[in-house]
């Protein structure tokens, strides 16, 4: 198992009720599995999950990206800069 730290930003911080969480996954689990675990643990995130992107090590990644020890994830709700 690996523990992936996940950061929440902007509105996702409010929806999760915290700034970060560590998620335990099997080594090589896909980002889609990380999304599923986050949705189960934080129901308010679940309904918004389709609008949010995942970043790993500060880059946007697709749902089939495999996760390994040392990866750092972040949930990126729709951005509103500018």
């Amino acid at each position: 198992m690996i523990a992936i730290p996940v950061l929440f930003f902007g509105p996702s911080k409010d929806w999760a009720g915290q700034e970060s969480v560590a998620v335990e996954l099997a080594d090589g689990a896909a980002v889609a599995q990380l999304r599923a675990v986050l949705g189960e643990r934080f129901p308010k995130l679940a309904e918004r999950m389709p609008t949010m992107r995942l970043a790993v090590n500060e880059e946007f990644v697709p749902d089939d990206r495999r996760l390994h020890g040392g990866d750092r994830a972040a949930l990126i709700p729709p951005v509103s800069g500018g």
Partner: protein
Amino acid sequence: MAEVWVDLLSGPIPISRVREFVGGDPALGGIVVFEGVTRAEADPQHGALQRLDYEAYDAMARGRLEGIAKQAVDRFGAKRVAIVHRLGSVRPGETSVVIAVACGHRAEAFDACRWLIDTLKRDVPIWKKDVFEDGFVRWVEPDNAHCPLDE
């Protein structure tokens, strides 16, 4: 060799310095500077907008700003690009973002600057809250809330 400057600042943006960064090369005949300014708005229930509160995923936002600035170099032939975004509280009438682009000619400079602000608003991890007169606070929902992963 193209020159790029990106930054996130917690105070007022030194707009003339952003403009100066892209200036000074007589081969570059088109300079476009875009300023995004907090618009005065009012909500029927909550009164006048007092300010916007911006926050960022700092390291990733800097990386994405650098990434899109370099893409503007590749796609539009921009020779100098500066993007500076303000974080924290920004009151109506104050500038929250400045983008300056210098190219050989005006057409590419306009295109690159327009593409940069559109891409920033879609892909750079920065968020803002509306803070109203009566204390009501809400996250700004972007017009296009569905964000597919592109490229």
